[in-house]
């Protein structure tokens, strides 16, 4: 294994500026959407008093969960001492910060009162898991920032393992906290499950790695840097394990719910209902978003192709969005069981009369705001790669593989 040389990307090509301009345009669109929603109120969105968290939250939570997962690559190098992963650490940490920033931007801009950001970060109710998350997110930024500095500053290299440990523990707590936002909601049948916390941790492994791999592939291909098969194959196999692990947690989550009679309504609603949530669960999350990428990653003909591996990553991200859509929106679409022993015959406030479920269609501003969060993450990374030494000059097998002969 040779010494790894990191080098800024040139960032002078038309393609580079085109990428920045494209991402900038999406961000401008998102700001316009934010202004439109803020000015008119949430009445212009698809969100209602029934579906109170909508598409912006799907994007925000996806990005926040993926952020902690993207850091995994650095953790595997620092905490678990795998030499192969060490050259990937810097990109991993900056991507983690960028994804979190994108997610938080969406979350903030969707608030009813985004102007009260100062209140949100200075007035805490410590019994609220949401308040803990605000502390966990800001702490994550700080700790990963220090970790990154220690990885990049030669004099501080010797401390990077300790910072790596701190960041690893912090990220586990962070995703546990994000999962617990739902796990602690006793009122809703779809939530109120302790398994939400570890399930979100495993989801973060999968989503974060899929995004990381796409960023890695794109960066190395667009800058003509060599990327060897050893790293690609290792990451590919790891992604396969993570996708399978998410499926496992999904199965356990639903089996647990199926065992409890009181949760049968929500299970039949998601698993065998006649709404879009059933379709999105089976087709989006399970088949297209999990089984298909698994097949692509392990079927020899496709597993040997970068293009197919990249497609598998894209499908994993699609599966992740589907999963969060079903959890978040599907979990709210089934009316609350306020009177579990009764049928609702009439209601003045949409309580699910005669089993009616709540409808939700995301409005364009919501979708554009969510995409804006993705663009914020990507533009940060694109810019960071140009100004500092995050990207190795080469990850060819003879450079990156510690066992290369």
């Amino acid at each position, binding site marked *: 294994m040779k010494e790894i040389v990191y080098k800024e990307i040139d960032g002078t090509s038309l393609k580079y500026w085109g990428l920045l301009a494209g991402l900038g345009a999406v961000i401008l669109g998102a700001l316009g959407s934010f202004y439109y929603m*803020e000015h*008119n*109120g*949430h*009445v212009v969105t698809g969100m*209602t*008093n*029934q579906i*109170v*968290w909508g598409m912006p939250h799907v994007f925000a939570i996806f990005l926040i969960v993926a952020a902690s997962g993207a850091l995994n690559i650095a953790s595997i190098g620092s905490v678990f001492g795998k030499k192969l992963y060490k050259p990937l650490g810097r990109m991993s940490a900056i991507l983690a910060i960028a994804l979190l920033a994108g997610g938080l931007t969406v979350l903030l801009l969707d*608030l*009813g*009162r*985004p102007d*009260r*950001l100062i*209140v*949100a970060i200075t*007035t*805490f*109710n410590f*019994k*609220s*898991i*949401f*308040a803990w998350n*605000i502390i966990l997110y800001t702490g994550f930024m700080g700790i990963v920032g220090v970790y990154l500095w220690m990885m990049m500053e030669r004099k501080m290299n010797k401390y990077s393992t300790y910072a790596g440990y701190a960041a690893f523990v912090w990220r586990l707590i962070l995703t546990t906290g994000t999962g617990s*936002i739902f796990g*602690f*909601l*006793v*009122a*809703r049948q779809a939530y109120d499950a302790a398994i939400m916390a570890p399930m979100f941790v495993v989801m973060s492994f999968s989503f974060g790695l899929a995004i990381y791999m796409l960023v890695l592939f794109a960066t190395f291909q667009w800058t003509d840097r060599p990327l060897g098969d050893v790293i690609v194959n290792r990451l590919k196999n790891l992604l396969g394990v993570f996708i399978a692990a998410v499926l496992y947690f999904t199965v356990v989550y639903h089996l647990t719910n199926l065992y409890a009679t009181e949760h049968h309504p929500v299970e039949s609603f998601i698993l065998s209902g006649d709404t879009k949530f059933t379709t999105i669960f089976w087709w989006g999350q399970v088949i297209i978003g999990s089984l298909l990428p698994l097949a692509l990653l392990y079927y020899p003909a496709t597993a040997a192709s970068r293009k197919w591996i990249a497609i598998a990553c894209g499908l994993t991200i699609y599966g992740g969005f589907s999963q969060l859509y079903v959890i978040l929106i599907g979990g*709210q679409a089934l*009316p*609350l069981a*306020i*009177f*579990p*022993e*009764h*049928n*609702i*015959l*009439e*209601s*003045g*406030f*949409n*309580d699910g009369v005669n089993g009616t479920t709540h409808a939700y269609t995301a409005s364009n501003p919501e979708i554009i705001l969510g995409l804006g969060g993705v663009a914020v993450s990507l533009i940060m990374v694109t810019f960071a790669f140009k100004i500092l030494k995050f990207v190795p000059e080469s990850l060819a097998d003879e450079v990156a593989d510690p066992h290369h002969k």
Partner: protein
Amino acid sequence: MNEKTENPDLDRRKFLGKALTTGAAATVASGVVLVNVADAKAPEAEASSEVRWGMLVDTAKCTDCGDCVTACNDEHGLNPAEGESEKPLTDSKWIRMVKIEHKSTGKVTSLPMMCQHCENPPCVDVCPTGASFKRPDNIVLVDKHICIGCRYCMMACPYKARSFVHEAIENQVAEAPRGKGTVESCTMCMHLVDDDKNPACVDACKEKALTFGNIKDKASDISIALKNSESRAIREDLGLNPGVRYKGI
């Protein structure tokens, strides 16, 4: 030497007399003022943990007339602005009528649903800024000044008692300030309750299906009614100990 200095005793007597009169007047007047202040009841002195406001709904008396809903909407300015039509999915509802049918027995019941003013309110637990809070007398409220509009309380409330203000409000009333982008719910008409009056819904009910009072006062009507009849909380299994209880469900 002038006259005043020639009769100092007279001057002193006059002075003392006036002083005493003024003093007595001041004492009485200040007492009157104090009594007035006491009558006015400073708002911060109102909420006491010696009191727990509660409500008992007798569903057998409820005729599903909706007068309680109308009264609440009028009291808090919840009706659509002039020329505006209702938006059932996004308009705020602080109280609503629900008609339910028991799955096994088929018994049909109508009842009003509003914030249940829990002793252990999930909305207060989850609120990141502490904007959802409980007064010492157990009225659960939203502090509109620090609500950031995250809607986590709406996710947490088992009773769907809260509404998010989805658009600018034009027809506000002074007693119930509201704001776009914040969450709101039944305040148990605290502005009336603090003035020793009943909540608007209670007074509006012609059938007297709603009994309101201090459930910590064993002699109150509500305490006696609760003691002498079967009542239950909605979603009793959650252990939230709501201040609103129902007879006949």
